[in-house]
């Protein structure tokens, strides 16, 4: 390939990649609901954790509640666990705008009240789960 052509197709490539990136950015901002269907189940060293929002789809800038379900890896519901929650936007170095509270519902279900994602971008939700001598943590990523 001639040097001139290399330059030409290189430029086309850059244009294409930046175009795709830009379209992704715009799409992420184009509505008030969550961008992609987030992964709602995560496996940790000790637990299988699933969350379900009681408001669907995940809303932007609105306080809502989740139900967190915790199983052991062999499928038994985890009861009487002590669960704490924190989260935020790592890119902006700030936490959640609210301080959610966790209470046990039974059968491995835990109610997480007071969640709010106030702005577009990438959010993380972390749960520390302690049952007996076992402590584990799980992260969910949400992108508005």
């Amino acid at each position: 390939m001639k040097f001139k052509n290399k330059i030409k197709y290189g430029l086309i490539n850059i244009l294409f990649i930046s175009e795709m990136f830009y379209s992704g950015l715009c799409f992420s901002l184009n509505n008030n609901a969550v961008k992609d269907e987030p992964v709602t189940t995560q496996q940790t060293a000790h637990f299988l954790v699933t969350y379900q929002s009681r408001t669907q789809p995940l809303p932007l800038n609105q306080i809502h509640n989740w139900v967190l379900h915790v199983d052991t890896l062999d499928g038994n519901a985890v009861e009487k666990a002590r669960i704490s929650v924190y989260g935020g936007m790592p890119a902006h170095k700030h936490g959640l705008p609210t301080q959610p509270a966790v209470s046990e519902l039974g059968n491995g279900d835990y109610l997480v009240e007071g969640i709010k994602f106030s702005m577009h971008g990438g959010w993380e939700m972390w749960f520390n789960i302690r049952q007996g001598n076992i402590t584990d943590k799980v992260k969910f990523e949400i992108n508005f």
Partner: protein
Amino acid sequence: MKLTIKLIYFVIMIISFSVEATENAGWSKGELALLRLQSISNLPVLPADPTNKYADNPDAAKLGQKLFFDTRFSSNGKVACVSCHQVKKAFTDGLAKSKGIAQTSRTAPTVIGVAYSPWFFWDGRSDSLWSQALAPLESGVEHGANRSQIAKIIYNDSKYRKMYEEVFGALPDISDKKRFIENAAPLGIRKSDDDWYAMTAVDRKIITRIYVNIGKAIAAYERLLIPGPARFDKYVDALSKNEIKQASTFLSADEIAGLKLFNGKAMCVTCHQGPLFTHHGFHNTGVPDPASIRPKITLKFMAKKAKPSLDEGRFKGILIALKSEFNCLGEYSDAKNEDCAELKFANKKRDETLGAFKVPTLRNITQTAPYMHAGNLKNLAEVLQHYNLVPRAPIGHTDLLPIKLSDKELKQVEKFLHSLSSPLVTAPEFLLAPVVKL
């Protein structure tokens, strides 16, 4: 390069541009969808205020309007809500530090569209519009009035009394001066506090209830102050109808470029989102605090003495809201426990709230200088420069990322902000001191 490779590139380019097809005046589908969300046409119906059952009562709003413009509810008879929330300045006062009876520590924010917010004041120390309206009345640097004085004006003025009773029912008899002591109120001032606690608990509640209802009437009035369509909204609405030529009459090329930066590279839209250009939350934007600026030459003994008191913002604000007798969960609120999620789950963590202040609306921003909670940035150019450079926060840590715009781009964003000014949709008779006929 073989023909096939050339063809592949050609096809990729076609696909690429069809994904991002610039269908309307250079905007892609995704960008247009975002613009529609920002248009005032997309402003939802004003949410109900469960803490105030009179919030949408038209007679309460008329009473609130009269109160808003009346200087009698102050210690010197010269200060009203409108003193700092002037109609001609988009309900602000143009001062870096607003002035009532004395100078306050912050600039007065606009009241336009504020009813959409769950938090009030720059630090969110009130969780309802009515409880916000009450605080300046008893502030020593704002109105300098007190609840007993306010209740007595309502009781003794036949016009006020009639308007009050039409909304809230019969006023209790507070004419007994021994029972209802003049100027008694819990202000943290010895004389007024002593008088206040000399009254029975029942009588204190009678006075406080009248005072609370005054706040609820002012809130009902302020709920009417809603922004109308600006040039930006007309531009978006024309684009939405595919009226490209018409749209181009509303915004200049520079303003459109500024809008693209606002929603794109500068990422202003992350916090200044939606039709009111705010997500109503709190952020530490590292605004220089005048208290942090020490004199250049400081003698040792002076340095020890001069401990600057930095504005802690939301960190202090939420603690005040939680303790307030007028919060969502308090006895004067009409809300049920489940209506108070914002208060119950508010973030109180020091490292996340220290130095954070409420994200203001950008509607009518050109009329509300000076800027930021401390009013220390004189114009929009200074504000944008602040976001470009991101100085170190004087307290806590900044949430900002540098937007890194060129001088030309900064100017374009500034120009775009000029397109957000508009008249209110509020009926004109609500924008001046009312004439009350009885």
